[in-house]
């Protein structure tokens, strides 16, 4: 139970850190969805989040972790596995990818922990659109 509440607390921390990273996009007029995706990943482990994106919308996907000295990465691919993001950045505990969906369909948001002092690193993803 103690371990579970600790895990929950760190995911919550990861979410609040990620929301900080997304704040810049709120100021640019993006609507941030009140929902998050998260968990924990081992080093170099990747996860795919399938997502229906709509042509005409502009999206920013932000990823963050609460683990100091960890580095994360996030990228967006289309249904054929082709990188489609217009832009992306990575700054230590935060990363983000920007995509203007070229057509409506399923896209794959790939998240990864690229380096971390811990065996498992908690992470969270949120996104905004306009």
């Amino acid at each position, binding site marked *: 139970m103690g371990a579970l509440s600790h895990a929950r607390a760190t995911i919550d921390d990861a979410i609040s850190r990620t929301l900080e990273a997304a704040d810049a996009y709120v100021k640019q007029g993006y609507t941030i969805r009140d929902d998050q995706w998260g968990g924990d990943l081992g080093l170099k482990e990747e996860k795919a989040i399938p997502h229906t994106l709509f*042509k005409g919308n502009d999206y920013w996907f932000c990823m963050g972790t609460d683990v100091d000295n960890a580095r994360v990465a996030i990228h967006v691919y289309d249904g054929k596995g082709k*990188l489609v993001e217009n832009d992306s950045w990575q700054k230590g505990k935060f990363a983000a990818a920007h995509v203007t969906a070229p057509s409506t369909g399923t896209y794959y948001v790939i998240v990864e922990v690229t380096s971390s002092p811990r065996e498992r690193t908690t992470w969270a993803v949120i996104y905004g659109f306009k």
Partner: protein
Amino acid sequence: MGALLSLKINRYCRILRSSLKLRRTPLDWSFFRMNRNWFRTALIAANCLVSFNCWAESAPSQIDLRKFPATQLDEVVVPLPSEVFNVLDKLGAPNWRSESRDPVVGTRGERAQIALLLGSIVAEGFVAVEAADKERIKEVGRGVLELARAIGVERTVLTRTNLIVTKANSGQWGAVRHELDGALTDVKNAMIELKDSQLAHLVSLGGWIRGTEVLTSVVGKRYSEDGADLLNQPDLLKYFQRRIADMPPRMRSNQLVNKIEKGLDEISPLINQKITPESVKRINEITGQMVKAIDSRA
């Protein structure tokens, strides 16, 4: 690559020169001239380091998605109604009032029906926002609260529904949309916490069905490939089909759920091909019948 590197170095030199110009002392300039080669070497080294860092962390331009299904987090993220309406905003200004209809709020039906109604009424809220219809929005806000009460998640949406009414009164339509999205998310999360994820899926599905009925009506009246492209959601449809298939037999054999399942099966081939004006019309008919079934005897 070499040209790019050289351009970058020249740019760095220009920036460095312009910053040095601010000081304008002979000593500074001579220091720069004397150490020009050293600066140049340092800049090349810095540039290489930066470039190496980018290469080390840049994403591959192509990946093999087949290696991912085993580690997928979710089957698919169900988009918010706002995401669809956001695109519809950009496609022109249809007569939203003609798309709007009186929200049906019935709490006598089974829980499955109430969950579908809840999703449907939230979608109705989005139509009312597009039509800037304050009275309709208030009806929707009250309806969401009533239906949420009927399935035991009233407290979760109380603040949201109050905000829906308040923001609509002051004409803050963007904020109303945000609260409608939030109400949908909160209700689903509350149901999942109550170990009622099947009902949570039905809420999403109810919203999707009514949203798709409206979308096909709007696109059908002024067909464009961009508009029809919004219906290109085969994975989302499959996701809903699988959610129904995974339901316990008792819920799946519910007459209404059964009708919804058949409707989705009919829509599936129409979405899995190029979406023509005829298929838009047919999807509109099918979703219209599904909405009627959801509303009936509620």
